[in-house]
């Protein structure tokens, strides 16, 4: 495996006007605007290997899109070096961008009121794709994404899901080596979401395309990626396989107990009560205790009369929420 992206010690600072507060603040802001420097990225380093699908996650405002913009050559970092596919993105821009594709989930690269196929033809010219190669790629994309019937309609007539499929096709026409996907499944219905995921996996396998994915949808991460990079407050907090994180939280359980009577006062060593309603009470084990079903039943039935109970692992979203709060990333 070769490293296709090497990101080392990247810093990025922005100067933003500072809003003053108070009764006449809007006048003060007008005459005297103060600026403060925000560190969007602070010594960010990571490597990505060719053919990987990497989930790039973090709460809003963590620096995700800044990183993507630096990687796609739109922004120049304040300091640090970056080599992608042998290029420095913000230098040799024209050469570099031939090998990347970018999909911004919220924005479109296709023309609003011209048939999709015309936009594709334009992209063909922009990327100087040879005729034969273009035909082959288009046939493949049409087949895999089921967009054959959409190509003669303008973008404005398509549904969100159809749009996303066309966007994906558009950014893959030139068979890029690296694909950046910014929130590719946002707002999509379940069926389309699955189709888009399958397609991303397919491209990754067939073309060995390296894919960097930012998303807030954890099921995307679970279904697609073999590696995640967690960023918060401009710093890399975790970089490794998703399994490891799941492992870390695997002993964390949520236990729902049905009592024989209405809930009253209750306490159990090593467990914390999260919520209760009528006969039901939900507990979780404290982080230093490991959950054993047998011990739990023994302990609880000594003190209380129980009818039934069920045990759940943490969901992916909950794991992430824990992770964020562990690093104090949650906005208060």
């Amino acid at each position, binding site marked *: 495996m070769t490293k296709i992206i090497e990101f080392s010690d990247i810093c990025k600072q922005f100067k933003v006007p500072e809003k003053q507060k108070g009764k006449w603040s*809007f*006048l003060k*802001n*007008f005459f005297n*605007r103060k600026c403060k420097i925000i560190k969007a990225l602070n010594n960010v380093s990571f490597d990505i290997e060719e053919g990987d699908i990497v989930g790039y996650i973090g709460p809003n405002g963590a620096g995700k899109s800044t990183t993507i913009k630096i990687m796609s050559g739109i922004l120049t970092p304040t300091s640090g070096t970056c080599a992608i596919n042998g290029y420095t993105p913000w230098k040799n821009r024209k050469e570099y961008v031939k090998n990347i594709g970018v999909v911004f989930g919220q924005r479109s690269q296709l023309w609003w009121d011209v048939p999709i196929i015309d936009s594709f033809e334009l992209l063909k010219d922009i990327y100087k794709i040879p005729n034969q190669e273009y035909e082959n790629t288009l046939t493949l994309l049409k087949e895999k994404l089921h967009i054959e019937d959409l190509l003669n309609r303008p973008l404005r007539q398509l549904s969100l899901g159809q749009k996303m499929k066309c966007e994906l096709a558009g950014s893959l026409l030139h068979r890029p080596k690296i694909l950046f996907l910014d929130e590719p499944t946002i707002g999509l219905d379940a069926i389309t979401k699955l189709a888009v995921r399958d397609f991303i996996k397919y491209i990754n396998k067939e073309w060995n395309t390296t894919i960097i994915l930012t998303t807030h949808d954890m099921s995307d991460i679970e279904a697609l990626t073999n590696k995640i990079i967690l960023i918060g407050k401009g710093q890399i907090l975790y970089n490794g396989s998703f399994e490891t994180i799941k492992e870390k939280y695997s002993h964390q359980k949520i236990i729902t107990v049905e009592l024989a009577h209405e809930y009253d006062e209750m306490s159990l060593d090593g467990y914390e009560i999260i919520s209760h309603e009528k006969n039901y009470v939900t507990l979780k084990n404290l982080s230093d205790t490991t959950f054993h079903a047998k011990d739990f039943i023994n302990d609880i039935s000594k003190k209380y009369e129980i009818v039934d109970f069920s045990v759940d692992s943490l969901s992916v979203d909950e794991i992430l929420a824990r992770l964020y709060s562990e690093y104090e990333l949650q906005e208060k």
Partner: protein
Amino acid sequence: MSKYYGIFKMQFKGELQYRAKALSGIATQFFWGLMYIYLYTAFMSSSSVDGFTLSQMASYIWLGQSFFALRYMGMPKHASDEIVNGNVCYKFIRPINIYNQWYFEYLGEKLAATLLRFFPIIVISVLLPTNYGLSMAVSGSAFILFLISLFIGGMLCVSISMFSVYLTFVTQSPKGSAAVISTIAGLLGGSLIPIPLMPSSIQYALNFLPFRYISDLPFRIYIGNIGINDALIQIGISILWLAITILLGQLLIRKSLKKTVIQGG
């Protein structure tokens, strides 16, 4: 009334956000004011034309540049956006007359833009030498009448701008509608060239249209080109035009709104 005050305040704050825009606006207004004065001085060559002197002309131009935002006939942007994107239907939910809301939004925007810009231009132009600078008003009473007629002029400007909102309903093209209305008003209202510099037959004819009561009337009261008695009569006429245009505007917009709602936007 407080809800209109609220609308007005929002517009004012919104306008203050664009600091660079205001500063560059002031600089360019000043610059072009100077250019216009040179231009008309060259045309007038002798020192006065039918009692309109060079120094009056300079004052007329500077007042026009200072109160540019107030007399400029643009497109009430909120209104046109809402019409084009169809959100206008939601307006029915709110307990407020739609015409009034748009009217006050646009008036607020205008007043805010004017208040932010007029002062620096006035100060600088007062300091310029005679025949190039802004002179004092001919008398105290003229100055008071100037302020009154200017305010009515600003309101009249908004009420005429509202017709471009109506045209937007019809054509769905805010740009084209605003352009047509503002060009008519610009030519016939004296912002393209000062009305005292037009042939006298045309000057006479323009008295019968509403456009010159927006800015030509107040400016000429200020420089003393129109006497106090005439000024009072003409202010009366401008109030009449204000009432007519507002009533007509209310009527037209109510009519097109009904149509829009029935067609389902």
